[in-house]
């Protein structure tokens, strides 16, 4: 008797659970479709800011970059993707100075590990969001990152007051503008406000540029 009732209760529970499953898929049928139709949706496409697509060297409006040609990125690259070619020039006050001639990056060999960006002492390079990198010949994958005729941005000599707040503000207000000002100020007061900065960095963590800000702490 028990087995008979078990048979029928099992049967009806089975049917009920099947119907529940079908109701779930029925609702799923009418949900919004998640497919991204890529070439058409270029305008609205959202790429995660942390997605590493291509190495870039941000230049400001004066065609100036922050690279000191120290070659740390080249040293840190695990598979020799970067080669920093420097040249010696003589400044007007007669000093010899090493400046960047060509910063060459081979995308074909890059593993996008981000070590070069992390270790750059002057935050001169970063990974950009342009992911459409397909080319027809392999030689086109080798890119020169510094623009033609660009030069290194002069460091501001005056020491900034140890106030982290304005620094943060400029960053939040203009996330698009490369972090030139922010960075240069950082390079100046690097050791001084590194600790204060790290506290602020935590607050700004949600913002896009937070990656940049954490760097000084690592260096410190």
């Amino acid at each position, binding site marked *: 008797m028990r087995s008979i009732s078990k048979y029928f209760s099992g049967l009806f529970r089975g049917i009920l659970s099947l119907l529940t499953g079908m109701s779930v898929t029925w609702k799923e*049928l009418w949900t919004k479709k998640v497919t991204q139709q890529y070439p058409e949706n270029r305008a609205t496409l959202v790429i995660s800011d942390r997605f590493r697509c291509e190495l870039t060297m941000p230049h400001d409006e004066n065609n100036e970059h922050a690279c000191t040609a120290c070659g740390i990125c080249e040293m840190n690259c695990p598979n020799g993707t970067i080669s920093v070619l420097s040249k010696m020039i003589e400044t007007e006050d007669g000093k010899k100075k090493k400046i960047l001639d060509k910063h060459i990056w081979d995308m074909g060999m890059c593993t996008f590990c981000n070590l070069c960006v992390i270790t750059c002492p002057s935050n001169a390079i970063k990974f950009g969001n342009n992911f459409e990198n397909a080319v027809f010949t392999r030689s086109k994958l080798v890119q020169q990152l510094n623009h033609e005729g660009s030069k290194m941005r002069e460091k501001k000599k005056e020491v900034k007051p140890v106030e982290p707040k304005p620094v943060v503000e400029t960053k939040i207000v203009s996330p698009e503008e490369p972090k030139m000002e922010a960075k240069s100020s950082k390079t100046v007061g690097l050791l001084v406000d590194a600790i204060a900065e790290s506290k602020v960095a935590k607050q700004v963590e949600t913002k896009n540029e937070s990656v940049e800000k954490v760097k000084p702490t690592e260096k410190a």
Partner: protein
Amino acid sequence: MLLNYSQPLEISHLTTWLDSALRAGMPEFWVLLIEFVLVGVALMVAYAVIALILIYAERKITAFFQARLGPNRVGKFGIFQSVADMIKILLKEIIHINNVDKFLFYAAPFFMIVASMLTFGAIPFAQGLHAIDFNIGVFYVTAVSSLGIIGVLLAGWSSNNKYSMIGAMRSGAQFVSYELSSGFALMTIVVLAGTMQFSEMIEGQRYCWNLFNGHIASFVAFFIYLISGHAETNRGPFDLPEAESELTAGYHTEYSGLQFGFFYLAEYLNMFIIASIATTVFLGGWMPIQIHGLEGFNQLMYFIPSYVWFFGKTAVLIFLSLWVRWSFPRLRIDQLLNLEWKYLLPINLVNILVMVILVLTGLTLTDLFPNLF
């Protein structure tokens, strides 16, 4: 003549016109020969076209169930996707495999395709569009549709591949089991309808579908038929003969190009055949919805051509089958056989008895309310 005015869109006008035109200028023998060839060609074309449409519909609906868009690049909404796929599969190389049983290996796809083709011919698509109308139509359909399993078993055996073999054996166990249920479910309705001929069955469902006519017993038979028919097509939760994650592709692992295309086509057409037989037997086939006493309404319904009714009803059932397919996880072989031998078959046997009692004691809807239905 009356037919001409009341049903302007029927294809049967075309066929009767063709027939009379041929008969006017030719002896009987040639007329029949030409008509046979024409019917054969028309069926084959319909077979291919329906398969293409089904493949497209399946991919689209599947995509919607998974919150995707599905094919949408070839033509507007991707409607030419399956045409492109067909061209691809026709042009693909047939890879010859060394250690197979050559004769059986190449014969197997034809068994599949011939079995579903033979069944296809017996389906009443519309008023007057019915190639084979035996007086034992239901019996014929059950018989020839079960020929397909020979193709599956041969493919698995001759491929000389353990995955194909396991897939074929599973398919054999599944097919033989579920053939029983689907046969019994159809028998239940044969008891109700009192005929095995499809055309008579459809005529008998003019005012009341068999699904409603035998109420309880009919509903049970309908669902059992859908389940077992679904299982016979090797799809959905019953796809263990070709379980991709376990057996690469099951019995057709070694096939390529057009031969694989045959299996693929037969699989989709079997889905259509199951749905269309269910339509014919349970849902009134091509017969439009008719209500006793409402002549104007009945005429209006007849304006919608019968093939639209048929394909509409079939499409609903196909959608149901897809819905089931994308809802449930795959059964294990023991669960599969449990479902059949412990649940469907005993319920089915009792159900036939119930149906016989219903018919004999006059408890069907047509007997209870002769004026309404």
